[in-house]
């Protein structure tokens, strides 16, 4: 129980990543696969945040005297996550636009049917 509560964030984010991977591996609908990728992205972002997070920590700003730097939450992962969110959004947008165009050509989003390129 203690293990669970100590590592709840890690479990949560890797749970998200595994769910995403599961979707990508098994689902045949392209939209679902894209959602799965987004799951992975979110999980990774959460993982980054978790690494810098200190439970009960303070904001990394010396807003008032007497703040202990040891208790400050690391700001760098948050900055990184901002960047990765932007990247994730652009990948998502690109993927969806490609999916729309692909649907025009194939008339389906079933990835098992969209396999003219092989071997």
């Amino acid at each position, binding site marked *: 129980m203690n293990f669970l509560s100590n590592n709840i964030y890690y479990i949560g984010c890797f749970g998200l990543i595994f769910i995403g991977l599961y979707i*990508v*591996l098994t689902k*045949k609908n392209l939209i679902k*696969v894209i959602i799965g990728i987004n799951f992975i992205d979110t999980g990774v972002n959460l993982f980054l945040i978790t690494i810098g997070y200190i439970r009960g920590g303070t904001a990394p700003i010396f807003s008032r005297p007497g703040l202990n730097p040891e208790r400050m939450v690391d700001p760098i992962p948050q900055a990184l996550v901002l960047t990765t969110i932007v990247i994730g959004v652009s990948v998502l947008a690109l993927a969806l636009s490609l999916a729309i165009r692909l649907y025009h050509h194939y008339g389906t989003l079933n*990835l*098992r049917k969209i*396999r*003219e390129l*092989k*071997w």
Partner: protein
Amino acid sequence: MILITILLIAFGGAFVTYLAGKISGKLRNILAVLVSLALVVLISLIYRREISREYYTLPFLNLKLILMSNPLSWFFAIIIAGIGLLSILYSLEYMKDKERLDYYYFTLLFINASMLGTVISGDLLSFFIFWEIMSWSTYLLISYKGGKAIAAGLKYIIMSIIGSLAMLLVIISLYSRYGTMEISAIASYMQTASIGYTLFILITSSLSFVIINAFWPLHTWLPDAHAEAVSPFSSVLSAVLVRKGIYGLYLFMYVILGLNILNKLHVGFISFSSVLCGIGAVTIVFAAFTALVQEDSKRILAWSTVGQGGYMLLGIVFATASGMTGGMFHVLNHCIYIALLFFVAGAIEHRTGGIRNINELGGLIKRMPVTFIAALVGISGLIGIPLTNGFVSKWLIYKTLILGNHPFLAFAAFVGTWGTVLYGYKFIHNIFLGQLPEKYKHIKEAPLLMQLPMILLTVTVILFGVLPGIPLRVISAIQRQVALPPLQTTLFGIPKEAGELNMINVLFAILISCFIVWLLFRRAAKSVPVQQDDSYAAGSYVPKEKYHYTVNFYNPLSKMITPYLRDVASLFYLNIARGTQRVCNIIRRVYVGEVGYYAMYIVLFLAFLIFIQMFF
């Protein structure tokens, strides 16, 4: 300096010739002849000069590339340059109305240049570089004609790549062990190498030479390539290029390793030399009888090229004075008469409009007498009739085999010669003797420019047959270079103490017997030529082609031996190729086209990596 000049002229001349061809065809032809003439002159200049000179450095491998000249390289260089010049001369007329001539001359000169490069390179890396250049440029010219030649070219280049990669493995391994590629330095290092390593070097490197020299069972590229290439180039191929294999074997066996080490390489009575002897013997017999059943003039010659290689091998593996001399001399002799014979085949092809099937020819002696004499002399040389050069070298080889107590090898060599006699006669008879087919009634003699190289070579065959001392002197210099016992020679042959052979005596003997025969024929009844049209056919008209009795020459013999001549090696390689192709087709099925699988590959790979790292 002169060696660099030779290389520059050879390679630069090829490019200049190509560019000249864009301006005018005449200029290109003149340039091509001039370049090859210049090479002959330059190479004659370095006779008996021992040069060794760095010309290039590769800093990242810490290597210096060296050019050198010594009797061995001079011997091969002059052959290359000479045959190169003659084939260019011959091409002027032969190739006249073919397409892509710039390309043709460029590649031919380029091949000659790279072959020169291989023999004058003083380190293994430059040897390999020129060797590879030779391989691909040869491919470009074998396939030149298109059609069947495409498959022949592909076969050649794949086998050649296999061979040269084996050689690459050897030279890189030598380099990483000794840090140098200079032939003389490696030769001194190799004196102390272990037996296993020496064997590895020797076997792997001889793979490439066995391929290029087309010894059984790696001969399969040769008949196709030689038959399908254009005739002037076929003569270059089988006179010079193929004999690079002998050069390489000699280089590795005697220059790099030396006789002392070679003698150590044996288990019981199986030694490296005896394996090579076996290969040589099989090659001789198999090729001679395969040549016998061929119907295509160039294919006969191609198979004869394979077979004669066996004699050279039998000569040079026995490092006795007479064996080595015989082997090397046979390289030269074979090169002269096979070039001559390919020129003959080419001349006939040229005049008959591309006919190579000898069954469709006949009686051309009246229409093409010069070509006939060339063919007669060439075939005599091939068989080894006295007064032609082939006699002397074969005599030396037989002598080695018999005196060295090798009855089986000697028997194989004799059997091979019987085969040679048979197909040589078939070649002459089916083309020149017999009935002249109606459609060739008005055929003309080969053009003068094509006659010229043929006449030159014919004269040389006789000259070296009567005065074998001229080339033998060069060959004994080669042997002295690697501290092998040289054969004593006189201008007319071999002096008494070395086992007498005096061609002048033979010449007189033959002249006298010819005179007697001539007298006898004068006295005997004359034969009257009868037109076959007049023969009786029970009143019915028989088409003239039916009379052509050269079809199915040696029919009973062919029927008897054909079942034994199935080219198992060729089939085997074909199956390997098909199998590889099939495996490759299966391999690429991993790219199934479904993205879920691809994602799975990624995840599995990750899991695999983590697993590996955890446990190792």
